């Protein structure tokens, strides 16, 4: 419990939403599948907590970045709510990703030389 909390705290705000949107861009999915998908894609590095996932999904629904529909899962024949990214969601994702990349670039530029001086 302790570790997972640490992990989620390490994620910066908006990271979870970004990953959800990216996963949904590839393919619509229900909550359980989203957890599985993110876990697999990150080689088990990232563990999405249900406690964060569902509020995040509701936030995205509210912002109309995703939409949801109740269907019957073909594999388990259970009623599930499948989420799908909207056009607004796609635009938002694009914007967020490019912003994230710029930020990452910046962080690397700050961290990079420092590390090299340390190394030398």
């Amino acid at each position, binding site marked *: 419990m302790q570790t997972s909390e640490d992990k989620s705290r390490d994620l910066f705000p908006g990271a979870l939403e970004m990953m959800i949107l990216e996963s949904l861009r590839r393919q619509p999915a*229900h*909550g*359980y599948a989203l957890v599985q998908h993110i876990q697999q894609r990150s080689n088990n590095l990232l563990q999405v*907590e*249900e*406690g964060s996932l*569902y*509020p995040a*999904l*509701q*936030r995205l*629904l*509210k912002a109309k970045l995703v939409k949801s529909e*109740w269907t019957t899962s073909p594999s*388990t024949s*259970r*009623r*599930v*709510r499948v989420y799908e990214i909207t056009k607004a969601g796609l635009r938002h994702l694009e914007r967020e990703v490019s912003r994230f990349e710029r930020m990452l670039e910046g962080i690397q530029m700050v961290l990079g030389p420092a590390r090299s001086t340390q190394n030398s």
Partner: protein
Amino acid sequence: MSWWERVFRRRTLNDELSEELNGHIEEKIEQLMRLENLSHAEARQAVLRAFGNPGLIATRSREVWQWPRLESFLADLRLALRRLRKSPGFALIVLLTLAIGIGANTAVFSVVNSVLLKPLPYPESDRLVSLWLQAPGAGIADFSEGLLMSPSMDLAFSEHNRSFQSMGIWSQRIANVTGLAQPEQVQSILVSDGVLQTLQISPLLGRWFSQQDQDPRGAKTIILSYGYWQRRFAGDRTVIGRSIQVDSQAREIVGVMPRGLRVVDHDFDVFIPLAPDRTNLDGPPFGFYGIGRLKPGVTIAQADADISNLLPLWMSLWPQGHYFAIWRITPTFRPLKKQVIGQVGSVLWVVMATVGLVMLLASMNVANLLLVRADSRHQELSIRASLGAGRARIARELLTESLLLGLLGGAFSIVVSYGGLRLLKSLGPAELPRLSEVALDYRSLLFTLLLSVFSALLFGSLPAIKHAYARASDALSRSTRTMSSSRTRNRSRNVLVVAQVAMALVLLISSALMIRTFLALRAVNPGFSDPAHVQTLRTAIPTSMVPDATMVTHIENDLTDRIAAIPDVAAVGFAAAMPLDGIDADWNQFQVEGKTYDVTRPQMYLFDYVSPGYFSALGIRLVAGRDFNWTDNYGLRHKVIVSESFARETWGSAANAIGKHAHESNRNPWDEVIGVVADVHQHGVDEKAPAIIYWPVLMYIPYIEKPTLGAERGVTFVIRTRRAGTETFLSQVRQAVNAINPNLPIAGVRTMQEVYSQSLARQSFTLVMLGIAGSMALALGIIGIYGVIAYAIVQRTREIGIRMALGAPRSGVKWMFVRSALTLAGAGIAIGLLAAAGLVQLMKTILFGIRPLDPVTFTAVPVILVAAAAFASYLPAARAAAVNPVDALKTE
């Protein structure tokens, strides 16, 4: 999801979320079972452990859509509603208390708002001023209000002033309208040029009076009020241009004024142009109300100075104008609103303060009830606090309950205040100006809302603060069954009781003072006797109907004889003015033979013109000499009757006055004093009886050099009969009037008792209000004391049991509780006495015949309160003492 759905689709949202989460959990369980070969139960346990609290996740997800604060507020509200439903008795008492308390306050506030706060219903009414003057040199001590305007002043001022946009004068007169279905008396207002322009109310139909209408030799015109137009012409729009007979004079209707228009708080039926004759004007008569509209930015002080400068000009315009220099006339203009409100302001504020106090008292009783209720939840609240509920959360929950009570009470109170205002309007106290404007408007409703919330915070904050700050561990350990209650728990309730007693004392002292005032007023001998058996009515004979003065008196004499012939009439007479009717027939100098008078300090006396029989009809005692007879009138015999105080002051005794001589001024022949009558409180029993000089109804007018006869044309008949006020008697009087002249109107039909009661309306209104408030306060105080003692006894049953088991006598136990109640009452009384001593100073202007710090009242009321406190505590104490110690120790 729209805002709409967010509010109303809450259930769907919750269901969907829990279904989604359950599905998620199931899927995870299946996966675990598949991958790790666990049994369903084991897998489920593992999943739930990893998952955390599904309820919490659902809540967090839901909160995305909600306003969480509102949500928890709604939850508190639901809880509060449920708790109220479960204790209907409590809810009923609290809501009733609040509804009455808030309702009374809203009703009084509506009155204060409409009468005192709202501007007058004229455009830019803050620029309207009432034109009063002071004439300290005129010697009219009773002219406390000041000197009214005269037509000549109006002409001089309105033509030469620099401060007023417009100004004018007006006066009320009863006019006779004939030629329609029945002759009738209407309330007319004579207006000079400028009055309508000053009020700035456009006519509904037609036009205002123009300057031509004010020409005494020009066309005769009239303007109708909306009410009269509806009543007599059924709202016919073609009425403009038609003529009606007013005082036997045909007048063309040129306009109709809009609905609801009143002139400085006077209702009227018609406006008639004053039409002063410029060629024949003099300084007096000073009998007109002046009204002016200031130019923008001009202050009243500037206007006063402006008119002061015009006074010499005014005096130079009239033949004897310079005589008025000794009057030392100065303008003391005042805002029109002040004129309208008059004396009633202080009464209204006293009443407002009173009902405000009652509201505080009611709030305290509610707070007391809430404290008891919260105490019964003590354990629950403590448990919640120890489970981590914050102080704010608990306080919020308790406050929500109070707020709910306050708002519900406020909602019910609207019914109460609406009913109260209806009642007030139907009672229609004559002393209350602007009554027609009183209504429950948005300001009153806003006041209700604010008062509801404020009182809710007031009575709700006590339990909220107390329980939010109670230390959890302390609370939990405290209410065990082996302990009796601690001191701190009762402290807030004790403080409430002390405050309640203090306020009840203040209210009771105020009402006691009012009762004493009323009794003192009733004890004043008004000068007339047995008013219930005196019928009064007014009639008037205009010049246009009967030009000759002697003829007028003959007609009035005939009417008197005819009324006297009606069965059961003991006496009948008439006068220009009767006591308490608000009319002053005349004021003038009255100089006694053999005395020298300082011409620079003229002394003015109240005059009245009375017929033979007037004194005996009203029951005014003849102290010496005789009454007038008709021969004195028709023979123009220069006789006069004076009031007792004048006779004593001037000639030492009433008997000495008979045969003495006096006159108005050196221009007039001597008049012989033939009688002395008892003093009459002409202006109300709360004012000193003025010296009055009574003249015959037919005499030479003293102001005019050429001997001119004058008769009293507008007179009040007073008829002493045991049938006063009955319909059969009045119809007989009407027949008598009709037999003389069918065009004579009758108005102001009242018994003297009604006139007398109305003159005490201000005091009786205050008395009733304070009486109601005082008895409510006493009842609330008794309930408060009873509640606190009864509750303390319930809490201390165990202690009582122990005491009695150890041998305490029953009387000792009883005394213990009564003593604690008396201690509280004593503290309350001490505080209340101090507060009352300060607050009763506010009532000074209403009191009569009694000092604000009346020792009897200030002793009696505390004694009553102590008795009430003893009574209120004795009942539960006696019950406590009857407890069987074994039972007491067995409780819980």
